[in-house]
């Protein structure tokens, strides 16, 4: 229970970063944290029904649920790909406008066009 409350806390911190931070790199930090919180929730809860890693050994034991783990492999990779693209866009915006501040960037681009 405490763990899930902490995860909710982590998720909201990430969301706060995405929503309220002006610096676009900080926004990307927030997106990463948001993603990590969702991944941790899946793994944490999938662990509740077993005690062994899902690699079958000779002895019979209850393994944890492998499905959330397989799904989260995909989710982690997609998260990193999106982060990479977001950073490339951010650097490009910085090269155009000379700023990381989202409002400054918006103003400078509007002035230009």
């Amino acid at each position: 229970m405490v763990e899930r409350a902490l995860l909710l806390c982590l998720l909201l911190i990430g969301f706060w970063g995405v929503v309220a931070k002006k610096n676009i790199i900080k926004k990307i930090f927030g997106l990463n944290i948001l993603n990590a919180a969702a991944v941790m929730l899946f793994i944490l809860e999938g662990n509740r029904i077993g005690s062994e890693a899902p690699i079958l050994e000779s002895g019979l034991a209850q393994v944890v649920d492998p499905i959330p783990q397989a799904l989260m492999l995909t989710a982690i990779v997609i998260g990193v790909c999106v982060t990479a693209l977001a950073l490339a866009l951010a650097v490009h915006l910085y090269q155009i406008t000379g700023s990381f501040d989202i409002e400054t960037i918006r103003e400078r681009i509007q002035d230009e066009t």
Partner: protein
Amino acid sequence: MTTILLILIVLLAVYTLSSKDLLHGVIALSAISLLSAILFYILQAPDVAITEAAVGAGVSTVIFVWAIRHSQRKDDNHG
């Protein structure tokens, strides 16, 4: 144990978003990735742990550092 790790992760997350120096933020973020890799290992998810360590702490840190090297380290308005 998991609770302690999660508390550390939450604290690092707050630091990541509030630090003035973006490079410190990147390092805190890769620390979060490492801690969560340990967490996944404890939670019987070795595959996810390896992926998180390789991708989260490795590749994404490289990209973040590249991005910051191409721009500026300081968060100007800090808000």
